[in-house]
C-alpha cells in the first residue's frame, strides 16, 4: 500500500525523525491558513499524489508571500499532474502539503527496505540527493552506500556510523544523522514497510538533518496488524475497478489501453495468459487471478468486474483445474454468465481434473461460449475475434 508524503511525514514526526514544519490542505483557503500559521516565508506548496517526479511535472512550487501561496494553491489544486510515474493520463491533484522553506546546504539520499535477495534490512545512501537512486546505481555505483542489517540482531550504532561517515558527515551532523537513522530503522520494521525513502534528506545551513521528502510503502500482507495505517488509504489514487475488485479479495489489476479481459486461476498462470494474449496480437485489459482454489462466487465477481469495463471487447477464461475440479468451475462460469449477462465473445480454455465433464457443461449451457483446446489456441481465437 502506498500513502501520501504528508502522511509519511506524520509517521516520521511520531517516530522522532525530523521533518519541516507544515500541514496538509484540500482547499486554497486551507493552504493559506497553513502558510499563515507557519509565520514564515518562503513556503513550499507541494502536490500530493501517489507518484514520484512531482517537482519536474510542475507540482512543487516555492511561494515568497501570502499572495503567491493563494495563486499557487489554486493552480496546483485541480491540475492533472503528469510525471514519469503517472503515465500519460496523469493524476488529478486533490491535496496539497504546505511547508516552511529551509536553507539547504546539501542534499542526500537515504532509504531503508527489506532486501529480498540478501534476506536482510538494507540501508541505501548517497551524496547525490534529489537524483533517482536507480540512476545513481547505474552511473556511479561507487557513490552508493549499502549497509545490510540482520533482522535477528537489529540495527546497531556501527551500522549508523558506516552510513554517516560514508556520507562524509562531520561533527554534530554525525550524531544527528545516526540518531535519525536508528529511528528510521525502527519505523521500517515496526510498521512493516516495504520501502522508506527520503529523497532528498537535507543538511541545513544551521547544521540540522531533515527529511525534506518522505515516501513510505507498506507490505500488504502485514496490514492486518496495522489498522491505523489502513486509515491512510486514499481511494482517489486507485483505479475504481481495482477498488471494486479489492472488496472481494480478487487480485485484479487494470491494464490501460487493453481490450481483452481475462480471468485465470493462479498468479503465474494469469501473467503467462496475458503474455500469450499479447503474443497472439491482442492487448490484455487486465490481470485477474481468482485464486488457485477459486469458488463459484469468486468466478462470478471476477467476471462481473471484467465485463463492467467498457474497453473490454472480448474475454478469455483460462482455468487449470487442480483440486478445484473443472466441472465445478464450469458451473460457476455458466451461473455467472447467466447472472451477469455476456455481451462480448468469451473464449474458454479449461484443463485438468474432470475436464470432460466441465466441457460438457459449457457445451450444453446454451450460452455462446467458445471453447479452445489449449492456451495458444485460446489466445489466437480471442485475439482474432476482437480484431475482426
Amino acid at each position, binding site marked *: 500500500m502506498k500513502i501520501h508524503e504528508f502522511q509519511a511525514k506524520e509517521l516520521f514526526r511520531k517516530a522522532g525523525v525530523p521533518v519541516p514544519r507544515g500541514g496538509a490542505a484540500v482547499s486554497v483557503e486551507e493552504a493559506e491558513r497553513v502558510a499563515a500559521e507557519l509565520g514564515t516565508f518562503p513556503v513550499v506548496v507541494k502536490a500530493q499524489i501517489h507518484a514520484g517526479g512531482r517537482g519536474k511535472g510542475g507540482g512543487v512550487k516555492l511561494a515568497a508571500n501570502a499572495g503567491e501561496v493563494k495563486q499557487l494553491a489554486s493552480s496546483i489544486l485541480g491540475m492533472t499532474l503528469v510525471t514519469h*510515474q503517472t503515465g500519460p493520463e496523469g493524476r488529478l491533484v486533490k491535496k496539497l502539503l504546505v511547508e516552511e522553506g529551509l536553507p539547504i546546504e546539501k542534499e542526500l539520499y537515504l532509504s531503508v527496505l*527489506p532486501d*529480498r*535477495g540478501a*534476506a*536482510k*534490512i538494507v540501508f541505501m545512501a548517497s551524496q547525490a540527493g534529489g537524483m533517482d537512486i*536507480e540512476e545513481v546505481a547505474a552511473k556511479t555505483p561507487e557513490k552508493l552506500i549499502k549497509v545490510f542489517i*540482520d*533482522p*535477528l540482531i537489529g540495527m546497531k550504532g556501527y551500522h549508523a556510523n558506516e552510513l554517516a561517515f560514508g556520507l562524509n558527515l562531520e561533527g554534530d551532523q554525525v550524531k544527528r544523522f545516526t540518531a535519525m537513522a536508528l529511528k528510521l530503522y525502527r519505523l521500517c*520494521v515496526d510498521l*512493516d514497510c*516495504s520501502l522508506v525513502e527520503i529523497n532528498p534528506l537535507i543538511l541545513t545551513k544551521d547544521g540540522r538533518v531533515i527529511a525534506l521528502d518522505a515516501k513510505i510503502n507498506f*507490505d*500488504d*500482507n*502485514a496490514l*492486518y*496488524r496495522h489498522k491505523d495505517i489502513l486509515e491512510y488509504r486514499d481511494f482517489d489514487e486507485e483505479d475504481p475497478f481495482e477498488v471494486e475488485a479489492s472488496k472481494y479479495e480478487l*487480485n485484479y*489489476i487494470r*491494464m490501460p489501453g487493453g481490450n481483452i479481459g481475462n480471468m*485465470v*486461476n*493462479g*498468479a*503465474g*498462470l*494469469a*501473467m*503467462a*495468459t*496475458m*503474455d*500469450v*494474449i*499479447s*503474443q497472439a496480437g491482442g492487448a*490484455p485489459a487486465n*490481470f485477474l*487471478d481468482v485464486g*488457485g*482454489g477459486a469458488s463459484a462466487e469468486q468466478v462470478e465477481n471476477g467476471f462481473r468486474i471484467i465485463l463492467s469495463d467498457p474497453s473490454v471487447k472480448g474475454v478469455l477464461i483460462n482455468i*487449470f*483445474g*487442480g*483440486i478445484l475440479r473443472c466441472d465445478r468451475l464450469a458451473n460457476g462460469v455458466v451461473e455467472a454468465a447467466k447472472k451477469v449477462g455476456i455481451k462480448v465473445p468469451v473464449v474458454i480454455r479449461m*484443463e*485438468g*481434473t474432470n475436464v470432460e465433464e466441465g466441457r460438457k457443461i459449457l457445451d450444453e449451457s446454451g450460452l455462446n461460449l467458445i471453447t479452445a483446446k*489449449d*492456451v*495458444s*489456441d485460446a*489466445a489466437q481465437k480471442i485475439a482474432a475475434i476482437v480484431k475482426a
Partner: protein
Amino acid sequence: MSVWVDRNTKLLVQGITGREGRFHTVNCKNYGTNVVAGVTPGKGGQDVEGIPVFNTVAGAVKETGANAAMVFVPPPFCADAILESIDAGLALIVAITEGIPVMDMLKVKNYLKNSQSRLIGPNCPGIITPGQCKIGIQPGHIHSPGHVGIVSRSGTLTYEAVHQIQQFGMGQSTVIGIGGDPVNGTSFIDCLSAFQADPETRAIIMVGEIGGSAEEEAADFVKNHVTKPVIGFIAGLTAPPGRRMGHAGAIISGSSGTASGKIDAMRQAGITVVENLGEMGAIAKKAFASVL
C-alpha cells in the same frame, strides 16, 4: 532416488484441524504419503481421519518420528509455526500458507541458516515425487513418475508444465514449487543443484516470473554447474512496472526484475527459453530427446 521426499518421508501437518489442512492432508494420505501426525495447539489427543493430533511439534516428533512438516497455519501465526518445526529439528518444512508478512519471513530465513532444516515456500503448492510422496496442494493424479525435474515459483503454472510434458509422454522425477513470496526458504539454485545431483533426474524445467533476481542467479548457476539439459519459462512479459501481480514477490521495481532481463540471462546461460507458454511440451520433447 529423488529430491528431498520419497517413501521414507514421515509427514506431520501443522494446522491439520483447519478446513484446508484437513482437506489436503486427506489428499496427501490418499496419494500414498505417510502422514504420521497432526499438530494444533489445544487439540492434542484428538484425531483427524485416524491421524493423531498433538499440541506441539516436539511432542509429535517424539511420539511418531516425523521428519517433515506441511504447514497450513494462517499468516499471523505461520512464522511462529515454522520456527517451531525448525527448533524441533525437522529436516523438511513445506509452508503452503500465503500472506506471511515479509518482516516475519526475514527472521525465519536468517534463523534457518543456523539450523538443520530446509524450508520450501511459503506461498507454494508443495513438493511431489510422483508415485512416492506428495506434500502440498497439487492435484496428484496429473503427475507420473519419470525423469524431468521441475522447479517453479507458481502453482497452476507448475501444473500447466506437468500437464504439457505429460502430453508428450514425459514423467517427472520431483516437482518443487518454491513459492511466489519475495523471501522464501528454498531457491531455484538449491533445486537445480539437487536435480543435478539426483540420478533419477535427467532434464530440468525452470519456471520463473517477474520480480527479484533469483532467475538471473539461477541462470548463472546453470551455466557453471548444471550439465543436464534445462528449459526455462518466465511469466510477466506484459506486466506493468511497480504493480504486485498477485504474488507478493512478482513486482518489477524500476528497471530490475523484468521478464526480458531474466529471459536474456537464461539464453546467455544456454537455457532453452520457452517464449510462448503453449509450446512448453513440444519444446521440452525436442530439448530433452537425447536424455529421455
